[in-house]
């Protein structure tokens, strides 16, 4: 069973430094938890990519297509000539297209966010309530007791205020 070493820090810089050292020591990518977004994580732990932008783009394109199709197709399905305008009237239909582009873009962004950040959390995940207030935590998964001890010592060295062991799914 995988166990986790956890270090609590009072400031983000020390936490980040500790995470960097752990990574340097060959541990799996440590996880940071914080009450506010920490800047400079990517410099220490490597760049992060998110798929959200692709979701937004695809959603927007899909919205544009479906928006215009909705307007034009439904106008053709039951033809109601109005005001001497063509059945497929471009300027108003482009407005519908515009709105639907944004609507689908927004919905796709949300979907992308939920998928890429793996929400909602169905499986129990490690959490440290102090990090929602004013502590910065570094969590690293260790497969053996040896590694666990090494990780703890690294965390202590980095100036952790408190070091704990947590098992996955422990509540």
């Amino acid at each position, binding site marked *: 069973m995988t166990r986790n070493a956890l270090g609590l820090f009072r400031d983000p810089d020390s936490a980040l430094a500790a995470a960097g050292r752990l990574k340097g020591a060959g541990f799996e990518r440590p996880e940071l938890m914080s009450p506010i*977004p920490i800047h400079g994580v990517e410099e220490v732990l490597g760049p992060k990519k998110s798929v959200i932008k692709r979701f937004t783009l695809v959603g927007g394109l899909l919205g544009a297509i479906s928006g215009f199709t909705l307007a034009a197709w439904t106008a053709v399905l039951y033809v109601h000539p109005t005001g001497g305008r063509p059945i497929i009237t471009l300027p108003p239909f482009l*407005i519908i297209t515009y709105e639907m582009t944004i609507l689908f873009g927004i919905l796709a962004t949300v979907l992308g966010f939920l998928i890429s950040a793996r929400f909602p959390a169905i499986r129990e*995940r490690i959490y440290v309530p102090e990090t929602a207030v004013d502590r910065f935590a570094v969590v690293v998964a260790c497969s053996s007791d040896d590694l666990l001890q090494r990780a703890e010592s690294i965390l202590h060295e980095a100036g952790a205020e408190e070091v704990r062991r947590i098992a996955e799914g422990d509540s």
Partner: protein
Amino acid sequence: MQTEVRQARFADVNDDVVRSLVVTGRNYYIALGIAGFVTLTCFFFPWFYQLYYGIGAAGMNSPTVWGTYLASFIFWIGLSHSGTLLSCVLHLTNSEWRKAMYRSAEAMTFFSLFVAITMVMVHIGRPWFIHWAAPYPNQMGLWPNFRSPLMFDVMAIMTYLTGSGIFIYMGAIPDFAAVRDRTTGWRHHLYVLLSLGWRGTDKEWHRLGWAYTFLAVLIIPLAVSVHSIVSWDFALSIVPGLHQTIFAPYFVVGAIYSGTAGIVTVMFVLRKYMNFEHYITKLHFDNLGKLLLLLSLLWTYINMLELFTGWFSGTSTEYEQLKYKLTGFYAPLYWEMILFCAVAPLLLISRKFRTSFVPMLILSIAINIGMYTERFLIVATTLSRQYLPGSWRVYVPSLVEISILVGSLALFVTLFLLFVKIFPSISIYEIKETMGVPKKHGEHHDT
């Protein structure tokens, strides 16, 4: 040590916000009771009366078939314009002062939109068939008419409601998580669901940041489009005084203007009654005041342009329209609007005025009264004077209409009062960001 002080303050933010949600004073219940009662008696009862008897309960007549309901609709849509739009713009430009106020501003957007949609329901003759304006397959094989500016409205407002609802929710996820840890009982379960299991890991922050920024980018053009589309409800007609190219920017500016004034009002109330004096400060009022001044000047400029283009057109209908607006039956209202929205805001030039709370409150309310008048005049002055002089007729709102107007304000207040007890009305994590990040031990001793 300074770090100690700062860390203590971090916890204070959580305490303050959780307290604002959990601890409920007697005054809150009294306020909620009054607002709910007024909503019931002044909004719902007259509305049911009107549903039973028909739109005839309102004061509308043959040329002026649109009245205060539509004016209220534009007003509420306008009020919705500052919250999310301003929040998005300030988010993208990394403005520090946004962070204390944006949550309640966005809530204002959301609830204004809600009230605006109820105003549409009140406005139309057969609201029980309103679903016909929604595109869905049905046995009649009939679809809404997408050539209609009213359909643009339906699509735009639904998109805006979805967008601003998602935006305010997404920004609040970390706060729900913070509140979740401190609450028990039904509240705990509510916040567990709302926070989706947020843990505040670096990955989650990264994803949230991106998604939030994308939403902001999408919502800014959306918000601009919403009010320009509302203006096209009018500008696409051929009624003199409504058929104006200036209407889209006019409406957008007016919307942001009245919305910003609305934010000032809400800020004042939150600061005073939710004990957020530390977070909502003179700085916010100063900045909002500057914004208001800018918008008031823009608004005045567009109003002058509207008069000018009407005069420059040289057609008899436009002349008549202008003359009626400036000197006719509704002229006192017109000049009241000029006083409240163009002249009075000039006081904002003074920094002392901008940083005094009560005068700002009074001015913000005056601006919104003026802006309501503007919307009323757009409908009333133009429709009562159209092409054929044979059917000119003045329109005066009836008691039912006035009551529903008052009731819609109460409905908004009720919704807002419920909101402040469910949503953290200031953003916990962003307030913390503005407080400064804690530094390493040993660095930055007091200077």
